[in-house]
């Protein structure tokens, strides 16, 4: 039985792989955007897992800071993608 950190790390790799796969094969923009977000979550999970050293030890703060930055970037990118999608849909009407 692997320890919790390894389990989380492996889960993160699986999620990242699933997300990457879906981002490549999906044609619909919303689905593709969601897939990229899933991929991001997977990568963040791997990073978070590296911060864990054991039940009674302090976690490494750097990966937490990295993941926070990553989440901010991902939110901004997702917002931009949604704004572009809306602009695209609107340009359809005209």
């Amino acid at each position, binding site marked *: 039985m692997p320890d919790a950190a390894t389990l989380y790390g492996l889960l993160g790799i699986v999620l990242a792989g699933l997300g*990457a796969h879906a981002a490549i094969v999906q044609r619909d923009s919303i689905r593709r955007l969601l897939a990229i977000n899933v991929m*991001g979550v997977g990568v963040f999970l791997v*990073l978070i897992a590296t911060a864990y050293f054991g039940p009674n030890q302090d976690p490494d703060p750097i990966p937490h800071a*990295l993941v926070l*930055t990553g989440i901010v970037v991902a939110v901004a*990118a997702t917002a*931009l*993608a949604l704004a572009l999608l809306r602009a695209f849909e609107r340009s359809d009407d005209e």
Partner: protein
Amino acid sequence: MNESMSLTIILPLLGALLAAAWPRRGVFIGITAVLLSGLAVGWLWFSLLADGPSHQALGGWDPGLGIRLQVDALSILMLSMTALVALAVSVYASHYFTRRSQAERFWPLWLLMIAALNGLFLAGDLFNLYVTLELLSLSAVALTALGGKRAGIAAALRYLMIGLLGSMGYLAGVALLYSAFGTLDMQQVAAQTGDDPVSQAALIVMTAGLLLKSALFPLHFWLPPAHSNAPAPVSAGLSALVVKAGFYLVLRLWTEVFPDTLSTQGVTLVAVLGGGAILWGSWQALQAERLKLLAAYSTVAQLGYLFVALALFMSAPPGVARELLFGALVLMALTHAFAKSSLFLAIGVIQHRAGHDRIAELDGTAQRLPATTFAIALAGVALIGLPPSGAFLGKWRLLYSAISLDQWLLVVVIGIGSLLAAAYVFRVLGHAFGRSALSVQAIHSVHEEWPALLLALTATLLLGFGSAWIWPFLEHMA
């Protein structure tokens, strides 16, 4: 160490904020910020020449926890390329936009793009590189959609998705490296990478993500629509500068972080893809019916040359020939930046004056716009790789290395690529010099035509005749 390093990032960033706060003063703020950050690059030149390569720990935090900026010959050349191209394009852009709403949105994004580029060329740790890479993507995507047309928005959306996928790949590599080595500082990581599985996995996902972002054939499919549908100053920035960021990162990672991890198969694969890019990009450029699409496909081909040169550099045995090839590689990247931005600006002038950029209907352009046609011809000389352009010196060295490494297939590919490039450049010139049925008045417009002309002159004459110092400079300031 002085503060010029952080100033090259802070000044355009500050300009972006100011331009967003006072959109009506956008042109003034934009030009001033570009000029000032260019001066900061000049200041950085002085300190680099005086003190040699150096680094700066931002806020006094040590590497490992803090963010380290570093400068060496390669980064200062990239910074100078960015500063000069950005200045010329900014002058052109100051009169380009007819709708005020577009102009007001252009400057903050444009300055943010320059800040991201400068940050990327100076970053000394892998995570900071990720952040600058994302900032670059976001600003470049928003700039692509600036035209507001349906095709432009669709291209921007695809560009964004591809960019995100690429940076996620890069970030996955960063996560792997941190989990294995516990640091993000490039030098500290480089000291620990080897041919272990983690290093290899990180190298593969990072390189794949960056190749997607730098549009190496066959991952280039997103580039032509994005670059050809953006407004002319944006196209110039994207094609000349933004694609270089991905290439620069691959170069840094391969040569400095993963020198012992890289396998011969990986290098061969990139050389093959680069060869494919040269042939496919040049062929598509020859088929293009619109000037902007031609220029965009030409970028696909030129990136192919850069990656072929990188692959040859990685497989060359240590020695003088290898050092010479490195200088050639850098010179080709610089020349392409100036030539391609010149070409896109010149196309912008034609599109503005003629109302279209259809190659078959360019008759009379040489009579109507002599300076712009001259700029296209000069840029074309650099794109084909004819003397006296910087690209000629670069390609000469590239061919020499390919021959001495017995890579005859590459020699053939480079030859065919150059012939195709000559064909697509002369196809444009042939139409441009076609006589117009009407006798037309020649138009001369300083702010509109000179940026393209100066950029083309830099690519063809300055980087051809005045570039011999680049080789010793790269060697001493590495």
